[in-house]
């Protein structure tokens, strides 16, 4: 597969330790001989915790080392895929006009200058520049796609049914309900993340912050302003 997630994917059979298939077979024979036929009985659905634990145990038994990867993921989620990344990008764009131009021309390359990377299958980062008369807002109506390594993992409401259903059709109403009451002269552009191109919003620099350092400006930029449901 050419569009896999980070890090580069291995071939499917790499997860299988030697004897992998035969061990499945051996186990299923044991099950058949040990267990009564329950196929006609309908058991209650296991809790989500039990179901996750079942997959984790199955992975563990097959030598896929899920425990290690879970720890690695927690670290990524808590320390690497965070909105402070996008905030740094915005602060740099506010203070460095040449960087701003490069960012708008090729977002993926430009964030790389700040040491930020994107998963291999996010091949394109489009930076959406707000102006005093334009508000950009991003969503994913089909699932939950986001520039996770720049904006951070998306908040719960972004992935929820209401936002996905309504923001493309009732953008001004939805933004108002979320606390962003835009005057009629501000146009709205909604960006639906239906492919693996990713988006981030470049907010307008707040008045009275000219001359501030990048570090100070970074602290002003919120995750919600990078998604476009808030202005600064």
């Amino acid at each position, binding site marked *: 597969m050419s569009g896999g997630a980070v890090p580069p994917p291995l071939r499917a059979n790499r*997860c299988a330790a030697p004897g992998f298939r035969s061990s499945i077979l051996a186990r299923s024979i044991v099950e058949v001989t040990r267990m009564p036929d329950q196929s006609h009985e309908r058991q209650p*659905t296991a809790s989500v915790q039990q179901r996750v634990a079942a*997959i984790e145990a199955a992975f563990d038994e097959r030598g896929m080392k899920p425990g290690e990867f879970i720890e690695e993921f927690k670290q990524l989620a808590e320390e690497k895929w965070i909105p402070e990344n996008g905030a740094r990008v915005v602060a740099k764009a506010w203070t460095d006009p040449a960087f701003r131009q490069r960012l708008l021309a090729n977002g993926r390359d430009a964030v790389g200058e700040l040491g930020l990377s994107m998963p291999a299958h996010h091949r394109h980062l489009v930076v959406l520049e707000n102006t005093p008369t334009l508000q950009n807002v991003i969503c994913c109506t*089909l699932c939950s796609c986001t520039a996770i390594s720049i904006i951070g993992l998306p908040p719960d409401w972004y992935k929820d049914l209401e936002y996905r259903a*309504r923001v493309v059709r009732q953008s001004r109403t939805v933004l108002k309900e979320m606390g962003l009451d835009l005057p009629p002269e501000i146009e709205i552009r909604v960006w639906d993340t239906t492919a*693996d191109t990713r988006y981030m919003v470049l907010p307008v620099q707040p008045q009275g912050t000219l001359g501030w350092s990048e570090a100070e400006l970074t602290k002003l930029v919120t995750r919600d302003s990078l998604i476009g449901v808030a202005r600064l």
Partner: protein
Amino acid sequence: MDGIHDLGGKQGFGRVRYSLKAQTFHEPWEKRVNALFLLAVKLGIFNMDEYRHAIERMEPRHYLSASYYERTLTSLATLCVEKGIVTQEELERRAQGSFPLSAPSAPGRSNAAERERFQPGDRVRVRVDHVPGHVRMPGYIRGKTGVVVSESPAYPFPDAHAHGVKAADEPTYDVRFRAEELWPNSADPALVHVGVFQSYLERVR
């Protein structure tokens, strides 16, 4: 597929459950299952398009009532069973209860036979395709006309990539629609930009 996941423009939903300090995760198992699905992708057991499609294949009642991470869990388990990593019986034995999976997959498709290269400013129409498998064309743009704004790099064609069908990578076009034309007399005025695969588009002459 015209599935329940294709939510853009659906009516009847209430206010967004928004809070300023909204979290990504609420319970420890959510992080674990997110990690397990990424591990499976990393190991090459399935790709992101297969993952998305296995969520779309959830029984609609289950899809709507499941939390976001229960959908992740269901897709992960479904694909691990379909790929022969584990059986549903083993999962149910380990979970000590039933373990609902997604419905089987319908066939995928390869790129459109005739594809055109578009330039910014070109007027395009989204083809009126109805496919049983995975597709990244939200239903609300089907048959609608928009303007090409830019072209992306080529990506794997999702309608094929989710089904193990051979296909060429193709670009997506950032196509600009007007909300008022997508839902006449029934939308807040706005521009709606959608990343549309080349195979879904035809030129308006």
